[in-house]
């Protein structure tokens, strides 16, 4: 059984904050398929299209028939630990700081043996499950965990390195006025976040959820308007050094595309919140979070954006909003690159039309605030980069992967169909 972590003590102000170091991040191009799968928490291996051989490690050709047609497929991640050891020293600074480290070999039911990291509750001879996760360098690593789970298994030090668990961490939710703010606050409280800072724009305007939000355990409401640089910088000055997880849930949605709007005012508002808002938050909070990526048990760990799935392919009925989200998606990739030096993960949660006043005339299915909140927490606990919540988003990304131009054609046909 894993010893559960306890709330970390107050930081010793005389100690220098540990500079984040990273495990090796060099991989072959073939091996990056594993990172792409880990970004969604999937365990996938190359499976030869011609002879069906499942292989590991990833290569450029099939080890059996030399075919180069090697699509990545979801594979049953169960197997048996056939060997294990504990490493006590390493030349790599990242691992030196975290010794000892358990590694082993698992024989998968799919027929391949895989060298992997081993959870503290797994012994040689045990049946185990292999999970594919991103490490602090953003590369895929495989960790063997107890097949049936184990008490407090998420608190295992090797596992916690691979996840962004909110437990005992301090969270900033950027927009208390957003329709999902209350659900997010409650979900983080349930996940044992120690403080839930809620950014509140325009405190001079009442909004119905405020009372309920204020009642959630650990919530502190502070002024923050992502469209106002001064307001962002002021909050950075106050809590920038103790923001471990930032959830950027600020968004501005209005129906409409280009021709029906006659001016660019709404589009500017969309960009101000959805694109520049992200940039302001990142310029403000990014440096501190990147510097605190290895700051003990409650280190800075994740940046969460809640984006429209139509960032991938424009939905003309919400065409300008989609475009602002495409810009935000692109910017999030830049942020992912810039935060990677600190080992801070950028997780994008993509959603289809949401249950709110601006999607009210749209037919179901629509994504409820609680579903978004659940997806955020689950994604952090799994240390994901890409989360698709709800049927629309899941379907859309599948169609995008199958053929972006075909999807574009389908989205064009959808104009006028959404109300």
């Amino acid at each position, binding site marked *: 059984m894993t010893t559960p972590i306890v709330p970390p003590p107050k930081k010793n102000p005389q100690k220098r904050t540990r500079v984040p170091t990273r495990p090796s991040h060099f991989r072959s191009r073939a091996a990056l398929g594993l990172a792409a799968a880990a970004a969604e928490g999937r365990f996938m291996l190359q499976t030869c299209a011609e002879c069906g051989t499942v292989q590991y490690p990833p290569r450029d050709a099939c080890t059996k028939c030399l075919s180069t047609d090697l699509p990545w497929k979801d594979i049953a991640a169960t197997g048996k630990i056939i060997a294990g050891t504990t490493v006590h020293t390493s030349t790599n600074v990242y691992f030196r700081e975290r010794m000892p480290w358990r590694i082993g070999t698992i024989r998968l039911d799919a027929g391949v043996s895989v060298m992997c990291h081993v959870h503290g509750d797994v012994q040689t001879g045990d049946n185990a499950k292999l999970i594919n996760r991103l490490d602090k360098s953003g590369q895929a690593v495989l960790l063997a965990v107890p097949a049936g789970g184990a008490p407090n298994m998420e608190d295992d030090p090797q596992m916690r390195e691979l996840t962004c668990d909110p437990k005992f961490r301090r969270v900033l939710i950027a927009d208390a006025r957003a329709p999902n703010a209350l659900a997010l606050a409650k979900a983080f409280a349930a996940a044992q976040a120690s403080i839930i800072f809620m950014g509140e724009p325009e405190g*001079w305007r009442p909004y119905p959820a405020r009372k309920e939000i204020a009642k959630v355990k650990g919530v502190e409401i502070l002024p923050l308007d992502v469209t106002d*640089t001064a307001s962002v910088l002021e909050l950075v000055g106050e809590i920038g050094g103790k923001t471990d997880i930032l959830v950027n849930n600020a968004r501005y949605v209005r129906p409409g595309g280009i021709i029906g709007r006659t001016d660019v005012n709404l589009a500017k508002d969309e960009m101000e919140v959805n694109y520049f808002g992200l940039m302001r938050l990142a310029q403000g909070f990014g440096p501190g979070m990147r510097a605190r990526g290895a700051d003990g048990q409650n280190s800075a760990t994740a940046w969460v954006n809640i984006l429209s799935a139509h960032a991938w392919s424009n939905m003309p009925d919400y065409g300008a909003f989609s475009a602002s989200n495409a810009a935000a998606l692109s910017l999030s990739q830049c942020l992912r690159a810039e935060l990677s030096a600190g080992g801070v993960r950028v997780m994008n949660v993509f959603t289809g039309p949401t249950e709110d*006043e601006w999607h009210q005339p749209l037919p179901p299915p629509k994504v409820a605030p609680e579903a978004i909140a659940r997806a955020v927490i689950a994604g952090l606990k799994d240390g994901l980069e890409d989360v698709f919540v709800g049927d629309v988003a899941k379907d859309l990304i599948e169609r995008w992967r199958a053929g972006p131009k075909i999807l574009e054609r389908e989205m064009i046909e959808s104009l006028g169909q959404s109300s």
Partner: protein
Amino acid sequence: MSAVENDAAAALGQFALALAGGDIEVVDLTHTLDPDFPVIILPPEFGQCARFRIEEISAYDHRGPGWKWNNFTCCEHTGTHFDAPVHWVSGRDLPNNSVDTIPPEKFIGPVCVIDCSEGSKSNDDFELTPDIIEAWEAEHGLIPADSWVLMRTDWSKRSGAAYLNMREDGQHSPGPTPAAVRMLVNDRHVRGFGTETIGTDSGQAEHYTPPLPAHYYLHGAGRYGLQCLKNLDLLPPTGAMLICAPLKIKQGTGSPLRVLALVQKDASIV
């Protein structure tokens, strides 16, 4: 030089001396342009008033080592601001109806201040009525034609949510009734009307006939509006001079501006 010209020159000279000597005081009636200052809130499906925002260009740093400057953005109707007749549909076709074409002499003029602070203290929806105007005139004399009339409510002493005072059924703040505006515009021929609240109209003025009577009647008659004023409690009921020149925005419907009043020293105490 004619006698009239001599008088004018002497008046300006005396004015300069009185100003320098402190016998005439300058009262600032303007709120600071602050990103968090409330603006009018319309139903969400309508276009909205932009908030005041600042983005730094440089601050003696790598972006400009020896100087600091900012870009700012806002609506023509953000913060303490001036309303031109073209702002309202009733004034859309009038000549000289935008801030760039209003004759500049209209930006300096005498001002009457009607104190409604007592009533507004206990009633968020306090109305300025013809009766109140007549009672004021009984004490201070007829409102002179072409003068500004300001409605003092001390509303500017509120801030944040209490200033906007938005409830489920809309905003609640004091303002004039349709009859009061008709009286000021048609009978007293005022130049303009100003308030301490977010608009020249009351928070609930949408429910009058016509809706938003101050906007409708004032601008329909080519008169002006001032809102989000402060320090009206430092002005005497009569005798002050108002200076309120908006930015010269091409076909502008209004503009944030610095509103100043010139008052005789200690006049407000008398």
